[in-house]
């Protein structure tokens, strides 16, 4: 027979496994966590893979323009940026959305072809994301090179994540919204 101490040591990790998996099932059922992630052993069961989830981000400017930004580019950024993006894509709850908003806000974006592309971490501690129009965007000449200059004031950030489903009848991948969040930004000081 195992002693009481040995039983505790033997059962510790099986109990942790069950606790983490139950938590994952709870998050997946109640908050749209992808079954593929979170330690619940739901991989290879659902069409809703984390890597198949697209995320769309939009900057709303003070003039009311809506500028899509390349939020997926954050996955190639620093570990902090990658972590915020990967976690929010798998589970877009309040906490993870806030972390991703913080990262978007502390980044620099340059608009080219109507899309705000990720340039890296913004220098300095300015409130809100640093968004500038590229030289080509300002001049209207697509061949125009040079430093982006014109600053854009962002008043809100919208994020929406989708999950993949599959319709056997029509043999189609069908996107379904898995969550939408927005953050209003205060006026610049």
């Amino acid at each position, binding site marked *: *027979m195992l002693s009481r101490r040995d039983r505790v040591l*033997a059962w510790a990790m*099986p109990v942790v496994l069950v606790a983490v998996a139950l938590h994952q099932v709870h998050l997946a059922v109640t908050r749209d966590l992808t*079954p593929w992630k979170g330690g619940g052993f739901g991989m290879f069961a659902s069409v809703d893979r984390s890597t198949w989830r697209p995320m769309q981000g939009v900057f709303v400017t003070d003039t009311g323009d809506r500028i899509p930004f390349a939020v997926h580019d954050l996955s190639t950024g620093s570990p902090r940026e990658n972590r915020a993006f990967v*976690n929010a894509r798998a589970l877009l709850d309040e906490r993870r959305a806030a972390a991703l908003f913080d990262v978007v806000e502390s980044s620099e974006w340059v608009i080219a072809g109507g899309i705000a592309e990720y340039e890296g971490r913004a220098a300095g501690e300015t409130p809100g994301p640093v968004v500038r129009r590229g030289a080509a965007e300002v001049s209207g000449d697509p061949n125009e090179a040079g430093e982006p200059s014109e600053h854009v004031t962002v008043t809100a950030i919208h994020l929406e994540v989708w999950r993949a489903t599959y319709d056997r009848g029509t043999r189609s991948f069908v996107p379904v919204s898995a969550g939408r969040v927005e953050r209003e930004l205060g006026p610049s000081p």
Partner: protein
Amino acid sequence: MTAESGAEPRGSGGVRAQVREFLEGAPRGPYDDPMHADDVDLRSASFLALTLTLVMLLIGRPPETHVLTPLVAVVGLAVPGLARSRWYWLLLTGLFAHSPLMRPWLALDNHHWLQLYWFVAILLTRFATRPDAALRVSARFMIGFAFTFAVGWKLLLPEFRSGAFFDTTFAADSRLGDVASAFGVQEPNAATEHGRILRSWRVPGASPEPGVVELHTLIERLTPWLAWMTIVVEATVAVAFLAPLQARLRWLRDAAMLLFVLATYPLAPVVGFGRLLLVMSAMQSELRPRVRAIVYVTAFVAVSLLGERDVVLDWMRSTLTEAG
């Protein structure tokens, strides 16, 4: 087999005693239970499992392990007795845990979690008075519970039961798509082409729209069967590992695990996961030491070779193309 002094006599009964026996994976019966197994058997299972664990680290790919891990694994393999030291496993677990803990929590796959649990279980049980007996219990129940949740998910989701999950996996995941194309029932680049639908949803400013895939009717007829076969095989593993089997039936656990590995990994070569399951299963195995070593080392090597599966699939594809 020898019984330890202090063990409760058989038939002392009571619900409490039975619960305790279940928790130790040691039901009463006409055969000796694993906690009474002699130390030679346990030590040989532990030697096999810990050695394969170190080999697994040695041949694991860098993104999943710390750069120093293979070096420490080599030392553990080379120095006799080191792999039984708790301090050695403290170092190794720390190094190993570094990689998954530095990654986003929701980026980790199933096998990253199970690997982490396995290393911590080895470490914790090194502090037990009977480390190998305790690790045998950990290994058996971690496999049993992991498969219970895997089966639970598959039963819970209609898209799995209907075969839709496998439809999409053949259509857009090259791991299964390549198998289908090697058998000539799918275009060679179909998975990449279908993946474009999913990638188009990510284009900034795009409004994700449904996209149609081309799937051979044979695949569509096959996938519901494949889904239920997967459920049956995984449920078999879960039941075999969690049920309090009598000693003469415990080989069923080894058989169930080998069936799962044989049925799964040629199709979906997640080699790291396959190796880990075999290592854990070897620890709980009560086959004769020599048989156990032959079975598990062979399976471990076979699963590792599945990483080179593409060579075989390419050959099949070119042979089919030449045959017209």
